């Protein structure tokens, strides 16, 4: 249904723009709501997205969920902050679109082979020994230690990524198990152990997915009240 392209999407805006453009839509809040489901599907399946950027994909997913829920329930009131986030996403996407388009032009220039070359500097000029004054071997050591301390550490992020990749599918099955045991829980309980915002979003996505698959039933008495989750009766 949404076989968009084979290349992986490096970032969320790239994916979102592709979805909008595939449907020949302009960048408006309503159209963002329209493609929100397709976007979430991509994330859910970890399909064609660069997983190391999952956090960035999820942050946009959260905004799309806001937009989508407003489109479905125009009566919903949003906080100023949420309003701003929604408005911002459309702006951000419009801005990204401009740069994506210009980068294609820049790419063409780069392969056009209309290159300027410079010459080797100071050709034919002999070096003159001119050591910096007042520097000793210990200064050199200090400079080198500073250099070493600034080498970026790749492993930190790697762990983060590995941690995140498992999330959604696992969360769904965790939730299912929890519900089978308890038959009922609420969203606040579900995210009580959440480490960060992303964690909450993933739980929320998992919940939506299960609603969609008709595994669970959700209920919210009043706006901003806790969401009750229960296994669908008769299953």
């Amino acid at each position, binding site marked *: 249904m949404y076989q968009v392209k084979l290349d992986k999407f490096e970032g969320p805006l790239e994916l979102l723009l592709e979805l909008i453009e595939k449907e020949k839509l302009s960048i408006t809040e309503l159209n963002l709501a329209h493609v929100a489901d397709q976007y979430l599907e991509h994330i859910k399946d970890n399909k064609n997205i660069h997983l190391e950027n999952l*956090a960035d994909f999820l942050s946009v997913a959260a905004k799309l969920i806001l937009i989508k829920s407003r489109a479905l329930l125009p009566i919903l009131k949003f906080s100023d902050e949420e309003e701003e986030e929604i408005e911002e996403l459309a702006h951000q996407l419009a801005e990204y679109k401009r740069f994506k388009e210009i980068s294609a032009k820049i790419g063409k220039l780069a392969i056009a082979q*209309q290159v300027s070359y410079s010459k080797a500097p100071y050709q034919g000029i002999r070096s003159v020994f001119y050591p910096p004054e007042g520097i000793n071997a210990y200064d050199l050591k200090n400079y080198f230690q500073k250099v070493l301390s600034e080498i970026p550490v790749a492993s930190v992020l790697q762990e983060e990524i590995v941690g995140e990749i498992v999330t959604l599918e696992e969360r769904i099955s965790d939730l299912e198990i929890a519900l089978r045991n308890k038959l009922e829980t609420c969203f606040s309980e579900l995210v009580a152990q959440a480490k960060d915002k992303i964690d909450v979003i993933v739980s929320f996505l998992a919940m939506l997915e299960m609603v969609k698959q008709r595994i669970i039933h959700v209920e919210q008495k009043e706006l901003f009240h806790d969401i009750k989750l229960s296994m669908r009766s008769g299953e």
Partner: protein
Amino acid sequence: MDPEKLKSIIESILFVSGEPLALIKLAKVADATEAEVEAAISGLAEDYAKGRGLRIIKIKDTIQMASNPDNAEFVGELVKSEIQENLSQAALEVLSIVAYRGPITRAEIEAIRGVNCSFTLRALLIRGLLDRTENIKDNRRYLYNISFDFLKKLGMDSVEKLPDWETLNKKIEEGGASAPEKQIESITETPENEKLPANEESL
């Protein structure tokens, strides 16, 4: 100093150096005022524009002498190396953002792309297509600028001549003040140097 003489001196200096030179340094070495040097450089650039083999490339107040890109096919033979290098989509986007919006922080670049760019930035810095300077306002964050090598690669003599410069140099008008700054935080909580995505995709 006689303007023609100064033009000759500046031409000699730019030739011998071969590297980008700051206007202020040119003025010092040529023993002239910056205004005089600027006039001499404009004069040179005009001369070169008449189908000469040389070019003056300018980024802000720094100047480099280079060859005319129209002759690239011949000069390329001599230089041999410059194997066709494919810049990835990510690299091209980052380069474009820096070219049109630089000087710019990593956070601002990431706000536009919506994704972490540290790996691409690092690769472009090493490749010399971007330059990085300390941010005076905030010493934890660097400011990124386009480099002479980038302009030379595109055969341009200044960023202002890039396509659609006038329109893209400006931000899209937003409802309120520029909001992106705020929302960036989620992406850039890590200090500048850490957070290197582990994938080894090349430029």
